[in-house]
């Protein structure tokens, strides 16, 4: 029979997911199966999406869930529709918070990505010879999104472990996850601490960190007094690197949508067509990209 | 003089109603032409066609020999046609001056000319003898004042044709007189005036010629009004003779039904006291702003009182809201049907049953059959002109809307005190006498009825006693045996020294 596979993501507008879909499409073309791409921003939409896949005769789906706690519901819904299920990016958990190990997963832990960010910042602070006491850290936060908290906390934990004073970390809560909101929130932090001249910034993604960078520019902090490290590595970050002169946006942790999109789709196909069950857990690594090496890094990850 | 304004076979239909059918007549230059007919006869529709607001299905309008083709009200305005509509068309949030200029503000390159804006209006208002502040927001004016502002629109520019649709329905004789002298001046200038009214006195006082509509058709055309009599016109309108519109007769009066003690509120600072007996009809007369409506609203609990008690059959009505008053047997039919009466978008049936349905809706569950019967009864009794009781009330003619609102209150059960504010505003002669009959019937059953009216003939014609209000106080209480126009008007006027220029011609012409 024809193989039909669903690929459900939580935020279809995000470039990351566009890329995952793009690479999954590649796999579909190679193997000749149908890929159904559905965006599902919340638990309810996700439920309907699974029903919808069942109704159109798909055999399985890959999902990046809007919330990991939706786990038991997703598993039950998949079973009810007789669909195989794999997760990507974010791993499902039970009611008690433990991972649902039966469901094959490919992803990277949010905390690990965050730690990579933190490490990059610490290295650069040392390289520039700054005294951590004089440096302020902007924590562009969006605490209602659990992954966002994990990433930001991952980064800050590395900073603190390396002697960054806790008192110099300032929260800049974004009202929304766009650059303007991050810019407004960061501006307040900078103005409140006008005495601090050197800054670093972490956030949930590139857009958040960019907001902090724009804020430093608008209050006249020079680019070489700012170290912002984002997460994602898509166009927002690349645009920054392409600017004629370096900005405070120092680097970004690129995670590979290629593996996440292409390999998961391929694995699901194998599972359906050949009965070959995928590995239960594959963790991919994030890779740091800077202004001068981002092109190579992207090539290495196969996303050019 | 040749005919200046000509209607040629005008027809206009709405779903279920032929509002105008093949109506043709013409009016001479400089004439004031009356337009009469029962409620729903098609008067306002004809005026809406003239104003460019609605287009006729067939037929032509000629002014000064030229055929008029209007795509919008603007075209009609440019052709020199000014219309004062039956319902007030004012923007409450704007000032008096701004309302008078609306649609043609004085401006240079789009920037308002504030001087001219206020200057000319002040001039015109003074000229007309209208005492309203041009910079006041219309929201702060009483209905009567608003009506005067509406009328002032007619003189803001020089018009060839002015149509006035029941301009005096909420005016007292004093303000009406201002309008009449204005009309006399316009007539002298050669303006054609089309004048709609249900008040025969006014028609005879003002008009040179007259047309009567019936069921959308031309019933009669009188090029010279001096050739017709009142009774003839009534017969042409209603299709039957009405011997005595008022029909008042002696009734036995019972014990005190309603007692008001020191009633006062923010807009009515002087405490008011009065009593009404079982079976009695008490009239309240006064000039605009005398405080009659305010008194009724306080009594009914529509507005918050600062003090005072309302006692019905010896029991004091404690709580103070319309819902409570109704339960205590006190109801008010408000004066402003558009603002306080009709419920737009809902059917005649629902508009009538809204209050009384609680008597036949066990556990809040409706009884559609009962509601239908009730609606049909009052549609027939009050002669509401409509294709069906399910018609949206907004589609009725003004007078018919008023009848529906009256029906709402006349159909209430267990009413002990009925307050009606301007009950026959916009209602035709035929229906009027039927409404009075219903009031007498209710009174005979023991109800205490309070009628507020600005029409002196009406109040003298149907009440047993008149309380005259002046500047928020009851200036006089007069028994039927002592009714006298001069006395009543004198009491209504704030300053007695003015008693000599009482506007009594209108009353005398009766």
């Amino acid at each position, binding site marked *: 029979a024809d193989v039909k596979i669903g690929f459900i993501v939580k935020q*279809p*507008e995000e470039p990351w997911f566009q890329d995952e879909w793009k690479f999954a499409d590649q796999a579909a073309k190679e193997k000749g199966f149908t890929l*159904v*791409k559905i965006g599902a*921003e*919340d*638990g*309810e939409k*996700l*439920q*309907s999406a699974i*029903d*919808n896949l*069942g*109704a*159109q005769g798909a055999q399985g789906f890959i999902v990046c869930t*809007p*919330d*990991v*706690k*939706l786990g*038991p*519901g997703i598993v*039950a819904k998949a079973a009810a529709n007789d669909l195989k299920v794999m997760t990507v990016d974010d791993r499902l958990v039970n*009611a*008690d918070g433990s991972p649902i190990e039966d469901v094959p997963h490919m992803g990277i832990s949010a905390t690990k990505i965050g730690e990579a960010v933190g490490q990059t910042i610490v290295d650069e602070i040392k390289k520039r010879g700054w005294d951590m006491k004089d440096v302020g850290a902007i924590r562009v936060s969006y*605490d*209602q*999104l*659990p992954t966002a908290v994990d990433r930001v906390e991952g980064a800050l934990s590395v900073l603190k472990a390396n002697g960054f004073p806790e008192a110099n970390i300032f929260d800049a809560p974004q009202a929304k996850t766009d650059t303007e909101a991050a810019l407004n929130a960061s501006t307040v932090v900078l103005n409140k601490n006008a005495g601090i001249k050197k800054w670093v910034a972490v956030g949930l993604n590139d857009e958040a960190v960019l907001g902090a960078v724009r804020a430093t520019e608008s209050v006249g902090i020079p680019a070489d007094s700012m170290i912002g490290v984002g997460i994602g590595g898509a166009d927002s970050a690349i645009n920054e690197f392409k600017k004629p002169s370096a900005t405070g946006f120092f680097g970004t942790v690129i995670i590979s949508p290629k593996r996440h999109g292409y390999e998961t789709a391929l694995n699901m196909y194998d599972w359906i067509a050949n009965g070959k069950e995928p590995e239960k857990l594959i963790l991919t690594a994030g890779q740091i990209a800077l202004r001068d090496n981002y092109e190579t890094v992207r090539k290495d990850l196969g996303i050019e | 003089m040749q005919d200046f304004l000509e209607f040629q076979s005008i027809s206009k239909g*709405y*779903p279920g109603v032929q509002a105008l059918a093949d109506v043709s007549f013409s009016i001479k230059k400089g004439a004031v032409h009356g337009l009469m007919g029962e409620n729903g006869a098609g008067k306002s529709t004809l005026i809406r066609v003239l104003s460019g607001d609605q287009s006729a299905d067939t037929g032509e309008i000629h002014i000064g020999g030229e055929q008029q083709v209007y795509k919008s009200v603007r075209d009609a305005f440019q052709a020199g046609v000014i219309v004062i509509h039956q319902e007030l068309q004012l923007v409450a949030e704007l000032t008096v001056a701004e309302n008078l200029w609306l649609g043609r503000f004085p401006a240079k390159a789009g920037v308002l000319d504030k001087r001219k804006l206020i200057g000319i209006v002040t001039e015109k208002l003074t000229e007309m003898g209208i005492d309203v502040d041009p910079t006041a927001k219309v929201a702060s004016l009483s209905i009567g004042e608003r009506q005067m502002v509406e009328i002032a629109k007619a003189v803001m520019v020089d018009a060839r044709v002015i149509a006035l649709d029941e301009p005096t329905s909420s005016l007292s004789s004093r303000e009406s007189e201002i309008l009449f002298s204005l009309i006399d001046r316009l007539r002298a200038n050669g303006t054609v005036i089309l004048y709609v009214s249900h008040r025969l006195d006014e028609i005879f006082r003002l008009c040179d010629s007259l047309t009567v509509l019936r069921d959308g058709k031309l019933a009669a055309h009188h090029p010279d009004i001096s050739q017709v009599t009142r009774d003839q016109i009534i017969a042409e309108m209603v299709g039957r003779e009405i011997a005595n519109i008022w029909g008042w007769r002696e009734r036995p009066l019972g014990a005190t039904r309603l007692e008001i003690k020191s009633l006062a509120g923010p807009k009515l600072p002087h405490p008011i006291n009065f009593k009404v007996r079982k079976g009695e009809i008490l009239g309240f007369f006064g000039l605009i702003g005398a405080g009659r409506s305010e008194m009724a609203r306080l009594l009914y609990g*529509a507005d918050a009182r600062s003090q005072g008690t309302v006692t019905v059959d010896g029991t004091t009505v404690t709580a103070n*809201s*319309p*819902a409570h*008053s109704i*339960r205590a047997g006190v109801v*008010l039919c*408000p004066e402003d049907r558009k*603002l*306080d*009466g*009709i*419920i*737009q*978008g*809902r059917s005649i049936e629902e508009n009538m*049953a*809204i*209050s009384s*349905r*609680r008597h036949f*809706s066990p556990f*809040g*569950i*409706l009884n559609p059959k009962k509601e239908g019967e009730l609606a049909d009864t009052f549609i027939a009794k009050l002669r509401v002109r409509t294709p069906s009781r399910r018609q*949206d009330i*907004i*589609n009725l003619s003004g007078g018919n809307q008023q009848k529906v609102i009256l029906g709402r209150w006349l159909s209430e059960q267990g009413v002990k005190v009925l307050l009606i504010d301007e009950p026959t505003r916009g209602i035709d002669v035929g229906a009027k006498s039927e409404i009075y009959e219903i009031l007498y019937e209710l009174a005979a059953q023991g109800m205490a009825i309070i009628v507020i009216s600005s029409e002196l003939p009406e109040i003298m014609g149907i009440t047993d006693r008149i309380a005259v209000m002046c500047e928020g106080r009851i200036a006089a209480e007069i028994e039927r045996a002592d009714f006298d126009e001069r006395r009543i008007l004198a009491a209504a006027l704030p300053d007695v020294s003015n008693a000599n220029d009482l506007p009594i011609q209108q009353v005398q012409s009766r």
Partner: protein
Amino acid sequence: MTSLKKLLLGEQGLVVIFALAFAVVSVTVPNFLTERNMLGLLQSVVTIGIVACTMMFCLASRDFDLSVGSTVAFSGMIAVMASNATGSIVLGLLAALVCGGFVGLVNGVVIARFRINALITTLATMQIVRGLALITSDGRAVGINDPGFYQLALSKFLGVPTPIWVMGALFLAFGFLLNRTVFGKNTLAIGGNPEASRLAGVNVIRMRIWIFTLQGLVCGIAGVLLASRITSGQPNAATGLELSVISACVLGGVSLAGGRAAMAGVIVGVLIMGIAENVMNLLNIQAFYQYVVRGLILLLAVLLDNLRSVAAGRRG
């Protein structure tokens, strides 16, 4: 010809147009008219459908409620937390209803008694309640301990899942309330002319408070079903629900200017929204194009309905 026109443009015009559209979709879109897909479709509109019942009353009385999404999320979370804490699903349910009802009551009192603009009030409570949901859960979803709770959503009766039955029952109940009771007529009257209604003895303040409270209670029900369906209480659930629900109502002919509403219309509005989503996914329409299509469908639906009322010569 004329009778077809009459049918299309009559009172039930929207329903007829909808039936035609449904027939077309059934024939042209593969996998659409299957029992599975129909059940899936109905389940996908349970939240919108349930909340639309009371939103209809709210709009009909010339009010507005933006806080429904937050209230659904909050009461769903409370249901989960309460049933986890007490071990009793019934207590969880009750807690959700109390919570939802309370939010509605507060909205109603502030709007009706203190006469504060409904848009602003409910925009404020929308944020406050969302904040409370985030605070009580610390921003994380709360898992359900007792698997019995999932059964609410999974259980079936005559092959149809319970949530759909609940929605159907509420459609019936609120349809009855609107057309056959004094409460319903008074709601419409208030929407038509609040001042006239008050003078006609309707206790407008009490009515409005009741309508908002009912709205809150119904959000509580929707919240419980949602939590059960997604097997957790999520503080971020149902964002943007308010606009979907209001759209469904307006599509169904409820007037934002008050005074006009019909349950059949609202059901059709809800179904149109659900079918649009369903069909777009069945046809595998790209995410970005879905935005455009969704917008166009909305426009088309009101445009058709509008042609209808213009032809019917409605005034105002």
